[in-house]
């Protein structure tokens, strides 16, 4: 706990400050949970799971519980840019623990185009009102890349046809914190893939403030909630990696905790989809799995309340929480070292910088060695 002492004190102080703020909801979260049939024990279990997920010692559990109770102090504004609404859809799936979605209900969701009842002028009013009333206090969540070509006119919003670019800049200006939800808001995403016709960019490239990236296509609801919880508790940005991703979620490679890792080490690979190795659940490296190059917690968190995930379902990881993965990881079903890029020569040059860090080279060498080790058993495939 030693290294955590200052953190703990900071968090305790933060809770004190939050407690002094005026609540946005009348009913306390405890009453609300109680009505829904969750007792304090369920709630503490949830807080403990969040604590563990953030890789903090268990002493922090009561603090998370306190922070969650204060969650209603934070108004949220969720803006949609160039996107497919997949991240919003992932967000409404959140229920494990069910408390997640309740927390969101209880947080004051001031503006969210997919869920809000208001439309048109009334919707715009809600946005302006929230930005004014909660100036400097709201959390801005952005879904989607920001088109910047043609002065941002590839996306306009509202009766005054403001560009998405100007809207996100305005909202960022007055936000207490900014979270990019999903790979598009974090790094530009699919529309930013070569040749990026609309000049789509990640939010951090167009606002002059720090942005926390929560990438994934879509990211898990647990990662979104965990990031919010961290902000509530500490009032600061979490420890971030070089792509501004919270380390607690994006600190491990998919490969490191993969359920098929043993087969990789043993040199047992699926040689063709549907073969005996596929039935046995062998490693998907040769089918283009990008787990060794991808930082995320899918191996442990999975998706849809832990029901499944791509590698579990026999398809490799495609690296969706990495910057520019559509260009640097493709073809998605081939290993990176096995192909010559046809027609995407411009982007292939970037692979070096994006991926081939010393660690990854190490992994690659390991993979190659494993493949050789298994050469004698090739007949099985």
């Amino acid at each position, binding site marked *: 706990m030693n290294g955590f002492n200052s953190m703990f004190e900071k968090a305790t102080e933060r809770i004190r400050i939050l407690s002094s703020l005026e609540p946005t909801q009348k009913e306390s979260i405890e009453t609300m949970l109680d009505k829904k049939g969750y007792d304090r024990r369920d709630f503490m279990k949830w807080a403990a799971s969040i604590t563990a997920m953030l890789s903090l010692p268990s002493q922090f559990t009561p603090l998370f519980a306190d922070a969650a109770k204060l969650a209603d102090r934070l108004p949220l504004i969720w803006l949609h840019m160039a996107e497919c609404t997949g991240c919003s859809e992932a967000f409404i799936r959140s229920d494990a623990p069910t408390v997640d979605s309740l927390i969101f209900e209880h947080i004051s969701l001031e503006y969210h185009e997919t869920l809000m009842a208001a439309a048109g002028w009334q919707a715009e009013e809600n946005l302006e009102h929230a930005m004014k009333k909660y100036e400097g206090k709201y959390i801005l969540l952005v879904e989607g890349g920001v088109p910047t070509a043609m002065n941002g006119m590839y996306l*306009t919003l509202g009766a005054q046809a403001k560009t998405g670019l100007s809207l996100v800049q305005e909202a960022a200006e007055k936000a207490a914190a900014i979270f990019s939800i999903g790979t598009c808001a974090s790094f530009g995403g699919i529309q930013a893939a070569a040749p990026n016709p609309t000049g789509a960019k990640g939010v951090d490239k167009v606002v002059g403030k720090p942005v926390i990236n929560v990438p994934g296509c879509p990211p898990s609801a647990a990662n979104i909630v965990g990031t919010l919880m961290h902000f509530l508790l500490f009032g600061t940005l979490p420890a971030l990696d070089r792509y501004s991703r919270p380390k607690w979620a994006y600190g491990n490679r998919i490969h490191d905790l993969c359920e098929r890792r043993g087969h990789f080490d043993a040199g047992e690979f699926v040689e063709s989809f549907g073969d005996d190795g596929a039935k046995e659940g062998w490693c998907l490296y040769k089918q283009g799995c990008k787990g060794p190059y991808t930082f995320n917690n899918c191996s442990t968190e999975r998706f849809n309340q832990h029901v499944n995930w791509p590698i579990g379902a026999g398809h490799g990881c495609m690296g969706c929480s990495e910057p520019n993965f559509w260009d640097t990881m493709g*073809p998605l*079903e081939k290993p990176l070292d096995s192909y010559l890029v046809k027609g995407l020569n411009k982007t292939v040059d970037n692979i070096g910088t994006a991926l081939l860090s010393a660690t990854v080279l190490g992994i690659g060498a390991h993979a190659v060695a494993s493949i050789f080790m298994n050469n004698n058993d090739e007949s099985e495939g």
Partner: protein
Amino acid sequence: MANQRVVIDPITRIEGHLRVEVEVDENNVVQKAYSSSTLWRGIELILKNRDPRDAGLMAQRICGVCTYSHYRAGIECVEDALGVVPPYNAQLVRSILNESLYMHDHVVHFYHLHGLDWVDVVSALSADPKKASELAFQYADLPIATGTDELTAVQRKVAGFVEKGQLGPFANAYWGNKTYKFSPEQNLIALSHYLKALEVQRTAAQMFAIFGAKQPHGQTLVVGGVTSIRDMLSPARLAEWKTKYEIVKDFIDRAYYADVVMAAEAYGSEPSVLGGLGVKNFMASEEMMLNRTEKLFQGGFIKDGDLSKVFDVDETKIKEDVTHAWYEGKEPLQPYDGETIQNYTGFIDGDTVNGKAKVIDPNEKYTWVKAPRYDNQSVEVGPLSCLLVNYARGNEKVKKEVGDFLARTGLPVGALFTTLGRTAARMLQTKLISDNAITTFNSLIENLKTDDSTYTKFEIDPEKEYMGRFIGEVPRGVLSHWVRIKNGVIDNYQAVVPTTWNAGPIDKNGQVGPYEASLIGLKLEDPKKPLEVIRVIHSFDPCMACSVHVIDIKGQELSQYKVNPLASGAAC
């Protein structure tokens, strides 16, 4: 008095970015309507030069709501081009995934996107929970989530919001509008189902994830088959799907069906939902494999609302017009030859009922969505078209389901040709799919006894050129993807999607598309709170990200894009 302009932007509770403008006369009756998509992303252009095996995963990112639709289309158009036939197991699993998607997507649409157009949340506060609980038995033999205790809890929860004036996502809507027709008790029942559906949709998404890896954006389809073989071979996983399926089906039978019956009763004489159908041509595609010989829905084309004749769809008659879309081009073109040059002209300054704003100039271009036409005519696609085509084809299952519903509600067949009918058709389609999905599942179990193949091997010859397409039915209607492969990579790609058919602008002959036509003659209670317009548009279930895309047929240097991009807008 001159017509007044009403601008609604953003249309919320949809996928993507949509603006709708209407002109109303002095009696607040809509004379003209314009629909505009205000976002362009360019995904087909991005697909160019990629490995054809990546088409599915990339195309899937067109839309995260109907998510799987573009994934499957992207995989199957490449299979069609290469002549690859996936094993029967893979075909069945794909069908199960599609059925799981529909059971999720339509439930979310009705409750979370469309529901608040019918349900007045504030009115539910004055309901008597006990009376409401009894009332629920009028619409279902065994109602769900409508016990007095549950309804009281729901009421309290919402009361908290309202008291505080802190409505969150429910703030500043059109509550109290006179065209809300549910009684307080009916509103309370529907509101309780709104909350229950949030739970159920999670289960429906899990159903999908069992064989699809995750939802949204599954990751188990590959050109040649499916990868989730371990999930298929596990009796525990199969049983898990069946259990979740039963939970979702139960909700569809006892809540969704019941609520639409309730809406039919309450709104059966409300004029603003008894119009809303201006284009009477309907198209549907064959879909939902049940076993080797049977599909649940058949395809076809109906002209001028004449149900006595159904034509087979001739794809050479599909053409796209860009007269009022932000692309250059003169003559309507068949998708394979579609070639247009992006030409954004934006909006103009104008007066509206809410004061000065940027408005559409109907004489100019005004949307990123093109206007697809079949045999030079506007066409509606979607669940209503699917049911009408199958009803007219004499599909026994569809005829019985539609017949039962009309008998139950006392509505005439004509009631189907309305906003209310479109909303009811989506529910009936969901019911048909949820009743029959078990047949597909049982076919899979039966086949797995003797066959565990899930993948067909194939090769792509870089010396050869390939061409292929997918045409199928997805939650919002007929979807088609078209691909050309050359030098082993994608040479050209195009998606013609349901929302393009429905949301497209005026064509060169002055014909309007289904959205625009559906609003003509609609009377608004208060043009500053145009609930009626939103209800009609929502009944189509707009999906704008799908509807805007681009192709680059000439193979220009990608770096020249800024100078002269080639584009073609179609929509989902």
